[in-house]
C-alpha cells in the first residue's frame, strides 16, 4: 500500500499553504469507517437485547462524565500511541508488525525484572534505566522477525504472530516461577503476578486521585520525535523510501533488508516501552493479561491515524476513549466487551477497504489541481 497519498508528492501549488482539503479527505474514510462500525455495533446491541442509544450514551458519559473516566481514557491511549508509533515506523518500510503483544510482554518482563533487581537505585536513575531496558527488550523481540525477514525473507506477519505466542508462554512461565510474588508464595495463594515494584520507579501522577501518570507525556513527546525522525532525518527518509519502492531504493544504493530489519526492531522497541509504562505507570507489578490486547488495538489506532505519528495522537485517544467506554458499557448494560473487539476488527476491514476509494479521490483531486495550475500559467 502506498502510504503517502499522491497529494503529498505532487502538490502543484508554489506557496506552502496548509492543505485543509487534503487533510479532510484523508480523515474522511477513517471517520466513515467508525460510523459504519458503530452502526453495525448498534444492530448487534439490538440483537443482544440492549438499547443501542442507551449503551452508547453510557459510553460517552463514561468517558466525559467524570474526571476518572476522562483520565482513564488518556491512560489507555498511552500504550495505544506507543504501540501505534512502532506499527507506523514498520509500516512506512512496508513491514506489518503484528507482534505488538509479544513486544509489550518483552518490555514488561524486562521492566519488572530490572526494577526489582536494582531496587536500591534512586528514582531519577531507575526510571530512565528501566525505560531504556524495556525498549531494548521489545526491540530484541522485533529484531528477531526483522532479521528473519531481511536475511531469509520470512513473512514478518507469521513470525511476529509466533513471537507473540512464545512471549506469552515465557511470561506465564516466569510469573509462576522466578518472578512470582514471594508474598503470594508465603500466603500459599500462588497468584500469577510479580512482587510489587519499588515505589521510586512508579511514574508520577499528573492528576491526584486518578490513574493518569506521566507516561502519557512521554508518549506524546515520542510521537513528535518519531515524526521528526521519519520526515527530517536520513534514516527516516530511507525507511520511507524502502516502503514506497524497494526496487528504486535498491537502485539508489539503500540496503533494503537493513532498513526493513531496523524498522521492525524500532517497532518492537516502542511496543516494549508500552509494556514498561503499563508496569511502572499503571499496575506497578507484572500480572497476566498485562497487554490488554493493546498489541492489536494499537494496529487499529495506527491505521486510523493514517499511519502518521501525529495523526496517531488523536486516533489513540479516540480508541482509548472507546475502550474506557466499552468497559463502562459492559458494566452498565451487561454486554460483553468482546463486542468492542469485534467492532475493532470491523474498523480495520472498513479502513483498509475504503482506502482504494480515498486514493482515487486524491488522485482525481491532484489531476484537477494540476490542470487548474496549467491553465493559470500562460
Amino acid at each position, binding site marked *: 500500500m502506498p502510504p503517502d497519498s499522491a497529494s503529498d508528492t505532487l502538490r502543484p501549488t508554489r506557496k506552502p499553504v496548509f492543505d485543509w482539503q487534503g487533510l479532510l479527505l484523508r480523515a474522511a474514510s477513517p471517520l466513515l469507517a467508525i460510523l459504519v462500525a458503530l452502526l453495525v455495533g448498534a444492530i448487534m446491541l439490538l440483537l443482544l437485547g440492549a438499547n443501542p442509544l442507551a449503551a452508547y450514551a453510557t459510553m460517552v458519559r463514561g468517558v466525559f462524565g467524570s474526571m476518572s473516566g476522562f483520565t482513564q481514557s488518556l491512560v489507555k491511549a498511552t500504550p495505544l500511541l506507543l504501540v501505534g508509533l512502532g506499527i507506523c515506523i514498520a509500516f512506512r518500510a512496508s513491514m506489518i508488525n503484528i507482534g505488538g503483544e509479544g513486544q509489550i510482554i518483552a518490555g514488561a518482563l524486562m521492566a519488572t525484572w530490572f526494577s526489582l533487581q536494582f531496587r536500591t537505585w534512586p528514582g531519577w536513575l531507575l526510571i530512565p534505566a528501566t525505560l531504556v531496558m524495556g525498549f531494548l527488550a521489545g526491540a530484541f523481540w522485533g529484531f528477531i522477525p526483522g532479521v528473519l525477514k531481511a536475511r531469509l525473507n520470512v513473512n514478518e506477519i507469521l513470525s511476529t504472530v509466533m513471537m507473540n505466542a512464545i512471549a506469552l508462554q515465557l511470561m506465564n512461565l516466569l510469573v509462576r516461577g522466578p518472578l512470582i510474588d514471594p508474598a503470594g508464595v508465603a500466603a500459599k495463594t500462588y497468584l500469577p503476578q510479580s512482587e510489587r515494584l519499588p515505589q521510586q520507579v512508579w511514574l508520577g501522577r499528573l492528576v491526584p486521585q486518578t490513574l493518569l501518570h506521566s507516561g502519557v507525556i512521554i508518549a506524546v513527546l515520542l510521537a513528535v520525535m518519531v515524526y521528526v525522525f521519519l520526515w527530517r532525518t536520513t534514516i527516516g527518509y530511507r525507511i520511507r523510501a524502502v516502503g514506497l519502492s524497494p526496487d528504486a531504493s535498491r537502485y539508489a544504493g539503500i540496503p533494503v533488508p537493513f532498513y526493513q530489519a531496523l524498522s521492525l526492531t524500532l517497532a518492537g522497541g516502542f511496543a516494549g516501552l508500552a509494556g514498561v509504562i503499563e508496569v511502572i505507570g499503571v499496575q506497578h507489578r507484572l500480572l497476566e493479561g498485562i497487554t490488554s490486547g493493546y498489541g492489536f488495538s494499537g494496529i487499529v489506532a495506527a491505521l486510523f491515524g493514517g499511519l502518521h505519528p501525529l495523526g496517531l495522537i488523536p486516533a489513540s485517544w479516540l480508541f482509548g476513549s472507546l475502550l474506557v467506554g466499552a468497559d463502562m458499557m459492559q458494566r452498565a448494560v451487561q454486554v460483553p466487551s468482546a463486542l468492542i473487539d469485534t467492532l475493532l476488527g470491523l*474498523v480495520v476491514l472498513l479502513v*483498509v477497504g475504503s482506502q482504494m476509494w480515498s486514493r482515487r479521490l486524491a488522485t482525481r483531486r491532484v489531476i484537477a489541481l494540476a490542470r487548474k495550475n496549467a491553465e493559470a500559467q500562460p
Partner: protein
Amino acid sequence: MSEIITSAVLIGILTSAIRLATPYLYAAIGEAISEISGVVNLGVDGIMLLSAYGAFFVALNTGNLWLGLLTGALVGVAMGLLMAFISVTLKAEQGISGIGLYMFGLGLSSLLFKTTIGTVKTVVGFQPVRIPLLSDLPFLGEVLFDQSLPVYSAFLLVPLAWFILEKTTWGLRLKAVGQTPAAADSLGVSVDRVRYIAVCVGSMLAGLAGASLSLALVNLFQENLTAGQGFIAVALVYFGGWRPLGILLGALLFSTVNAFQLWMQVLGVAIPSDVAVMLPYLLTIVVLAFTVSRVRGPAALNKPFERGEH
C-alpha cells in the same frame, strides 16, 4: 526416556498426531488454494474460530453433528465472501485485511460464546469409525484406520486437492490467475471471479477446520479455541511449497510435535507445560526460516489485480 516410550505410548502419540493433523490439513489446503490464486488470507484463524463456534452451537442445540459441520462450512464461505470483497473487489492490502478478519472472527466468536453458551459445555463429537480389515492391521490399523470421519476426509482431501490443482482446467486457471493475472485476463479468464471462488473455497475449508476442531477433536468450544492454529496453517502453506503433499508432511510434523508434548504432559515428564506449549510456535519460526527462501510462491501473491495497469 526409553522406558517411558513403550509401544503403547508410541501408538497413542501417533494416533493423536493423525487426529491433530486434521484442522491443519483443512485450513492449510484451503489457504493454499486461496494463495495460488494470488490472495493471502491471514484471517484463517478468525474464520476457524467463528466456524468452530457456529458448528458447536448448532450441534449442541440440535444434537446433529452433520448439521454442525455444514454450519461450520457455511460460516467459512460467508467469511470468505467478506475477505474476497475487501481484497478482490476493493483491492485492499491483503495482510492487514486478513488481520482485520482475524480480529473480527476472534471478537465475534467470543461475544457469541459468552451470550449464547456462557460456560464451557461439551458435545459427544464424531466417534471413531473402524475400517473393516484395515483396522485389524497391527500397529498401523490402530493409528490410521480407527479415526472419525472428519479425520479421514481431511486426509482424502490431499489427493483430491492435488488432482484438482494439477489435472483439471480449473486448477490451471487458478495458477494462471496467481502467476500472471494480466495474461489470464487477456485470455478471457475473469481474474476477480476465479479469486472469489478460490478465497471462498479456501475459507470453507478453514470453516471445516474449525468445525472439526470443536466437533471431532476437543468436542467443546471456548474463547480463542484455536490458539493460533490458523496462523500455523498459513505457515504450513509456505513450508509445503503450495503443494498438497508438502502440506501433508508439514501438518504431520506439527501434529506429531503437538501430540508428543501433550503425551509428555499426560505422562508427567518434568518439562514445564509453558515450554511444551511453546514448542509448535518455535518450530513454526524455525521451519519458516529454513523453507521460505527456497521455494517460490505464486508471482502475483499479495498483489491486487487492476485491469489495464500492466
